[in-house]
């Protein structure tokens, strides 16, 4: 299972049908708390995408876990990490703007990989990878 923090990037991938290819090859999840961080427009869009699993967390455990965590991350950033932590074998996929999550990921021993790497490994299609690079840069 791959956990995504950058939901806007996910939305763009979905609009351009890249998400379909990805979802056919792996399980894609996001944190419910993270999704709540976006406007209704984004949330409604994501909720219509069947390929994305919206995962909730066990609140008491999360409340205990976030104590003393890095202050430059939001509750929703931390919820994404916690989702990855609580789901055995989950890998957190980092977009370029998620790099601030790295120290906490290392501290919590959560597996992660960069979004580019994730797309290249999963898609293996030059045309789609080029399209991904265009979408990412937009």
């Amino acid at each position: 299972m791959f956990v995504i923090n950058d939901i806007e990037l996910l939305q763009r991938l979905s609009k351009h049908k890249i998400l379909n290819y990805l979802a056919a090859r792996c399980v894609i999840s996001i944190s419910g708390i993270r999704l709540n961080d976006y406007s209704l427009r984004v949330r409604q869009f994501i909720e219509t995408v069947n390929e994305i699993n919206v995962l909730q967390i066990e609140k008491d455990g999360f409340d205990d876990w976030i104590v003393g965590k890095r202050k430059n991350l939001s509750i929703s950033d931390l919820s994404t990490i916690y989702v990855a932590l609580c789901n055995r074998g989950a890998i957190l996929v980092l977009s370029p703007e998620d790099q601030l999550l790295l120290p906490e990921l290392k501290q919590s021993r959560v597996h992660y990989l960069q979004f580019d790497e994730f797309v290249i490994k999963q898609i293996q299609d030059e045309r789609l990878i080029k399209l991904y690079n265009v979408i990412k840069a937009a």
Partner: protein
Amino acid sequence: MENIFATKLKELRERNSLSLQELADQVGVAKQSIHKFENGIVTPSSETLLKISDALNVSYSFFYENPVSYNLTLQNIKFREKHKINNEQLESEIKEDVCKYLSKFMELSAILDEDLEFENPLAGFEIATDKDIEKAAKLIRKKWKIGNAPIADVIETLENKGVFIVEINRVEDFSGLSGMVNEEIPIIVLNEYFNSVERKRFTALHELGHIVLEFSDELSETKLERYCDMFAGAILLVDDVLYAELGKNRTVITLAELKRIKELYGISIQAIIMRASTTGFIDNRISKEWWQSYKEWNTNDSPSDFGTYRSCERVQRFSKMLVRGVAEKRLSMSKAAELAEKKVDVLRRELDELNFSVK
């Protein structure tokens, strides 16, 4: 966490004028469940809390904020004369807004490792007479290196000197108030609802007067308020500048002249006439004639004839720090949105429109 959550939930529900049943219906749980959440007997699941957040129109992280932990208390609160607030609830709500803003500010300052301490430029300078006010205004301009030039943006100037400014929007009749937080952080609260740009500038400086001026103990409350008004006027328009703008031996004044000064210095026409009078530029008789002219202009001329000062005059320090933090990758975009109480995509769009490269 449970107790903070329980207290916040109850306060927020009541502030939204929702009954236990109404909130329960919106969230899709039993009324008893909300009752148990509010009393700390049961903690909701994250899914239920997300529904509660939606129903009460706050972010999920709202329930994790804890402004009390900064131990913020306002002291020395002074309201503008004739605009005194007697409503205890209103005062308490304003304090709550201020503490919440300051908590976020301090959290952001800690992340960015920035600390701007306020130093009173008039410390030890006691005010006893009208002349002391003019001296104080000149001294503060000198220490803040403003010279005699117009102050382009009063709020930005004060923020840069370490004064915390909070803007609120209340229909209650008051322009602003000032105080100290934990006896060291000066704070000015401005009510946008009643403030034109010129009034906002004047009110901010009037409140600054309450913070920096050290008055003789014998001064009455009325005199003190008058001195703060004089101080605001003196900072906006230095007496020498006023004399140079108006010229010598004036008896009759035109609206066009006053409008020009207003648009250049960001001071209202009433305040300019008051300045001319309090600095002794005109005597009582001429002052009465000018006020009479002002009344006639008010009757005969359109509001546009009175001019407008073009300036932003908005609180910006917090936003600027947020932008800097995101640009320098000191905090995540999501954290910035959390602090700004905005949705991530909305904040990103705003930053993109400002053309900051923060991707």
